[in-house]
Structures are given as C-alpha cells and as structure tokens.
C-alpha cells in the first residue's frame, strides 16, 4: 500500500525535516556544547563558529552573498523579528501602511503601538484576492509615513505581493517585508537590496527547527534594541554595544536551533512536485461541487499554500473528517490572520488551509485531491 505524505500544515511549521537537521542538533548537544561568543576555549569557539556559519548561510540564501552576514540578527522567530523592527523603529504619531492580508504578528503589534504612541494604521488598496493594487497605490499620499509593511506571501490564500514594485513607488520610506512563508522557497525570493527590513523564520520553508528566525537588514542602525543584556562584548559598559548584530542579540541564543538551521541550509530540499502538479491540484479541487477555493486570482502570484471552504459545511467538521478518514493534516480557522479573513469574506468561520512542502510528490497531491473530493461528498450527502 502506497505511503503518502499527508501533512499539509507546512505554513504552521514544516514536516518532515532533512535528517541532517536532527543529526546536527544531536551532535551539538552531545559532542560540542559550549556557548556563543563568550570564551576562548575550543568548545565555545566551535559553537561560535557554527552560529557564524549559519549567519553566513542565511545571508547567502536571502541576498545571494555571505558578505552581508552582519545584516542578519537572530531572534526566536518571525514574530519576535517583526516586534524588533516595529518596536525598534520608534514609530510616533506617523502613518504606517499595511497590506490587507497581514498576520497577527504585525496586526497585534501595530495595534498595541497605535495605542501607545498614536501611529495611524492605513490599509493599502488591493484587489479582491488581497493583491496590492499598484495602480491605486501609485496615487496614494505617503507623506508622514514611517513605514510600509507587507506580508510577502499571505498565510491564508498564498497571494505573493509585488514588494519590489511597491518599494519603487514609496522611495525612501522604509519597507518591512514579512517573509515568514517565503524565505526558503527558491522561486519566491525577495530582491533583498530593494527591501529595508526582511523578517524570516527557520522552521517553515527552510526546514529548520522552531525557535530560530531573524531580521535581515542593511539599515539596522535605524532600530533601537528591544532586549537588553549581555553580549560578551563591550562588557565594561552598561549600554548595549553599537555593533550589529550584537546590539540586537542580548543573551545566549538558541544554539541548538541555530546549528539545526545551519544543517537545513546546507541540505536544501529540491521540490518533488512541479508547478504543473500544483496547478492540477487546484484545478481538481475547484471542480468539486460545493467547494470554494481561496487563492490568488492569477496563478503567477500564487504561493505554495491556499485555503478552501465548503458551502453549508463547518470548516472544522471538514478538517476533522479529512483527518480521521484519510489522515490528512490541515490547519483550520483564522490562521492568526483575522484581518486577512475579514478582507477575503471568510471571517469568522475561517477556512481549511493546505500548505505544501518541497517533500510533497505529485502522488501526494493526487491523494489529497481524492481525499478532499470524498470527504466533501460524504459530508454533503449525509
């Protein structure tokens, strides 16, 4: 009997991981140990070198060059990275513009900041799928705008935003791109030199462990640190060091996680399905009576995830049926993106999200299509 990869919650966290990730973590914990940047002995030097190699690898993945490794600040994930930028840029009573498909990592942070410092949150004009409407943004007044923030790929319908074109329109205004869903996907790269701040995570498309993410930016000098503490450098002073990335990395980093991420970066996984296989899956699902796909209107800007809902059926009921009848693992609900669901008209019930991984084969996608067809048919014919 064929064994299918039935895990489709890769936008939450990816599974499986390359085996080298767990091996590297075990090697670090069992054989190396040692802390980062605090001591001269071999154990500490090895740990420090491992962290710095991972910093270079992530820089290379994001901007194509290891030379910009000092643009990489490690955090505990994309949420803490977004907080570092949004809180560190010291918004005052200025405007910020966001896409209509933002995650709570942005929305809750901005809402709190708005109450604290009075910044005004504005939503960029967009088409019905949430794709930023560049014709309309071209005529917007961006005066007194402190920052523009865009989720590179929606975690609800997979729309990939035109961040480079948007940056060309906004000029010197800092652009923050939440690339939690795209860093690690070779066909969805951000033009790093065009973006002021890119936030990313290691445990999704990069196939690393959870607990590691960061900021990539050549403009870290615009930020104030959010966390204060020891760095192993400039220790005679009570002030944080001026040098980046130390300035933003107080405390012992997640060493095992960073080492695991380094292994993931050294062992990238080529996609085992093609864009044609993916398009076929979307076509097969859209043909199911009663099922509505929530995806990009244009497949050219469709990322590796999408959602669906079924008329007359509760999304939770469909997801439960898919799991117990077919073993399909999905994420159901609002996906920590209530704003996106409000915009797409799927609030408050939410949707069932399907998020692909490079490990999925064409056969896995075919199994998924058949399982969804059967589940929807079973539930509608009760």
């Amino acid at each position, binding site marked *: 009997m064929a064994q299918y990869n039935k895990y489709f919650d890769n936008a939450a966290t990816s599974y499986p991981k390359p085996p080298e990730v767990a091996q590297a973590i075990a090697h670090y914990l069992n054989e190396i140990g040692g802390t980062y940047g605090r001591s*001269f002995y071999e154990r500490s*030097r090895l740990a*420090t070198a491992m962290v710095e190699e991972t910093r270079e690898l992530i820089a290379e993945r994001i901007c194509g060059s290891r030379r910009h490794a000092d643009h990489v600040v490690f955090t505990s994930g994309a949420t803490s990275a977004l907080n570092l930028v949004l809180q560190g840029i010291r918004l005052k009573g200025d405007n910020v513009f966001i896409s209509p498909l933002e995650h709570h990592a942005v929305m809750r942070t901005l809402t709190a900041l708005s109450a604290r410092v009075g910044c005004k949150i504005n939503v960029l004009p967009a088409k019905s799928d949430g794709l930023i409407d560049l014709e309309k943004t071209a005529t917007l007044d961006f005066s007194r705008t402190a920052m523009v923030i865009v989720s590179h790929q929606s975690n609800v319908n997979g729309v990939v935003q035109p961040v480079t074109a948007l940056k060309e329109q906004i000029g010197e205004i800092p652009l923050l791109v939440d690339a939690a869903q795209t860093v690690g996907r070779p066909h969805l790269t951000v033009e790093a030199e065009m973006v002021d701040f890119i936030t990313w995570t290691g445990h999704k498309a990069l196939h690393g462990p959870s607990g590691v993410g960061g900021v990539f930016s050549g403009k870290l000098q615009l930020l104030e640190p959010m966390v204060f503490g020891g760095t192993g*450098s400039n*220790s005679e002073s009570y002030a944080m060091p001026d040098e980046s990335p*130390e300035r933003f990395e107080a405390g012992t980093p997640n060493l095992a996680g960073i080492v695991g991420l380094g292994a993931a970066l050294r062992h990238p996984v080529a996609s085992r399905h093609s864009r044609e296989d993916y398009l076929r899956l979307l076509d097969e699902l859209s043909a199911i009576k009663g099922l509505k796909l929530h995806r990009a209107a244009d497949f050219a800007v469709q990322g590796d995830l999408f959602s669906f809902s079924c008329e007359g059926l509760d999304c939770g009921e469909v997801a439960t049926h898919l799991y117990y009848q077919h073993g399909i693992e999905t994420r159901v609900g609002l996906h920590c993106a209530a704003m996106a669901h409000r915009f797409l008209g799927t609030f408050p019930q939410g949707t069932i999200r399907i998020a692909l991984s490079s490990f999925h084969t064409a056969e896995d996608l075919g199994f998924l299509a058949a399982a969804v067809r059967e589940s929807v048919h079973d539930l509608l014919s009760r």
Partner: protein
Amino acid sequence: MTSCPGKLFLLAFKATRDAIRAESRLREKRMVFRVVALPRTLSSACGMALEFDERNFSETEVIRLLDELGIKTVVHCLKKPEDAGR
C-alpha cells in the same frame, strides 16, 4: 612596520563575528597562533583573542590579511614568557 619587535602580540576584536572570521582566515593561511582569553588588564570583554609570536609572523602581515576582509582589530604587545620578571 611593527610595534612589538621580538615579542608576543595579541589581536583583540570588538565583535564576536570578527574574531571568528579572523581565526578562520588566519588558519586558512596556515598561521600559527593561540586562541586565548582576553587579558583583564586590556579589556573587560569576555571574548577571545588571538596571540602571535612576532618572531613567526609580523604584525603587519597579520593586519594586512585581516584588512582584506574588513576585519577591525586592536593590537596589544605582550611580554614573552622568558622576558617576564626581568
């Protein structure tokens, strides 16, 4: 030009990343040095420093190699062990 003739000299770094890059670069060039704790008399930072014997490698040569990578360092002259107590 060297400021530590016939003596040990030590390279200190402000940033951890520079220390690791320097170590890697100098090992690539087969330079012989010891990784040591930064002497408390020089700095209260708790990072690592690289210790060289000037008879093997000139300070100028080492600095040039690191300059090529844009690595900033501070050089401190140390007494050789046999000089101690004289």
